[in-house]
């Protein structure tokens, strides 16, 4: 059974997950998470706002606290206890199955493990993590690629998991070494196409594996940016720490029905800890690739 490393966790999987870092199978690492092929029985499911490849996910919570996620025509998932992810695949396309497994589905397991999840792409600049949040299309991956081009290290793309130490300091857990970017970003930033593979047929999106060692240690969160495209708002505006909990709920990457009661309290406190430790900004997306690179250069001085 293949063994992988992602988000500081060892994952044993029945299915291939080519995005993740492979570990030797004869090693002595004990898996933290098992991904298991299985038929899935659903609790009552509701529509979510989560979409990927134009497919909307349905989600539900079982009486045992398990979280189910269903993508029509692709796969269903059931996350149990923060240690097992059951997968029922409806597709023969293993790359597509992997894409959906290592995103929100794995996110449900991470959520059960008590991590704070952000709909964000993150990079390591010097010894610090910068997180870029925003709606799909706001420029999360593009901004991360521009930092990687300047020598920053990639930490995560699209889904960022944050852990807290005993002093409630936030750390980004390195996810896996892959960035998914649009064809126009490749051209706009003049990226080396030799390092790019098309994500799948019919979509002008590419997977980029950065040409450097992937960070293996958690990185302290220093900057969080909410990217937007609104011309009527200022280019850069500080988000007041008191606004952080609401903003982070608004950008929660999993089904919002998960954020109730105790889980919502935890999310609230974790948001407060992030706001205490990091600077949070609303950043209007630079108007073109040249201005993005200029902005990145002025912020990547510590690289």
């Amino acid at each position, binding site marked *: 059974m293949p063994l992988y490393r992602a988000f500081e966790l060892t994952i044993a999987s029945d299915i291939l997950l080519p995005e993740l870092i492979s570990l030797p199978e004869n090693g002595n690492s004990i898996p933290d998470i098992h991904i298991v092929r299985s038929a899935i029985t659903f609790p009552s499911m509701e529509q979510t706002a989560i979409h990927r490849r134009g497919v909307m996910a349905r989600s539900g919570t079982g009486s045992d606290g398990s979280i189910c996620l269903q993508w029509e025509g692709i796969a269903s998932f059931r996350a149990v206890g923060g240690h097992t992810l059951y997968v029922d695949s409806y597709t023969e396309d293993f790359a597509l199955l992997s894409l959906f497994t290592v995103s929100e589905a794995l996110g449900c397991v991470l959520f059960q493990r008590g991590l704070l999840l952000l709909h964000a792409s993150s990079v390591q600049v010097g010894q610090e993590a910068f997180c870029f949040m925003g709606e799909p299309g706001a420029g999360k991956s593009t901004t991360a690629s521009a930092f990687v081009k300047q020598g920053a290290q990639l930490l995560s793309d699209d889904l960022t998991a944050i852990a807290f130490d005993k002093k409630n300091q936030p750390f980004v857990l390195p996810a896996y070494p892959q960035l998914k970017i649009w064809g126009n970003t490749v051209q706009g930033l003049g990226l080396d196409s030799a390092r790019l593979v098309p994500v799948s047929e019919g979509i002008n999106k590419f997977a980029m594996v950065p040409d450097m060692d992937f960070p293996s240690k958690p990185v302290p969160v220093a900057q969080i940016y909410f990217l937007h495209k609104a011309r009527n708002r200022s280019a850069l505006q500080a988000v007041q720490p*008191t606004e952080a909990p609401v903003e982070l709920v608004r950008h929660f990457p999993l089904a919002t029905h998960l954020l109730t009661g105790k889980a*919502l309290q935890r999310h609230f406190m974790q948001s407060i800890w992030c706001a205490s430790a990091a600077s949070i900004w609303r950043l209007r997306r630079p108007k073109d690739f040249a201005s993005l690179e200029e902005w990145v250069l002025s912020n990547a001085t510590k690289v």
Partner: protein
Amino acid sequence: MNELSNKKFSLSTAQVSSNMADEVVILNHDKGMYYGLSEVGALVWSALESGPKSFDELCELVMNEYEVDRVNCEEDIAALLDELLREKLVVDEA
């Protein structure tokens, strides 16, 4: 005499809060609603965090910190408590 004078007020179990930069941010986790308090509101909230307080105690506290006459102070605190009660962030005991 205010009808609030004899009551004691305390924070409800539906909320969790945090003090940040002279402000208080509050979550009502039953409703999934967020609130912010600053200045007088934050002062009253901090007092309630240390234990139940009567209406008169809260007024005294605010009058010690702000230059405000009793009539205006009582009106402000009554309005604030009314709102906190309505949002189930605070409960009263007769």
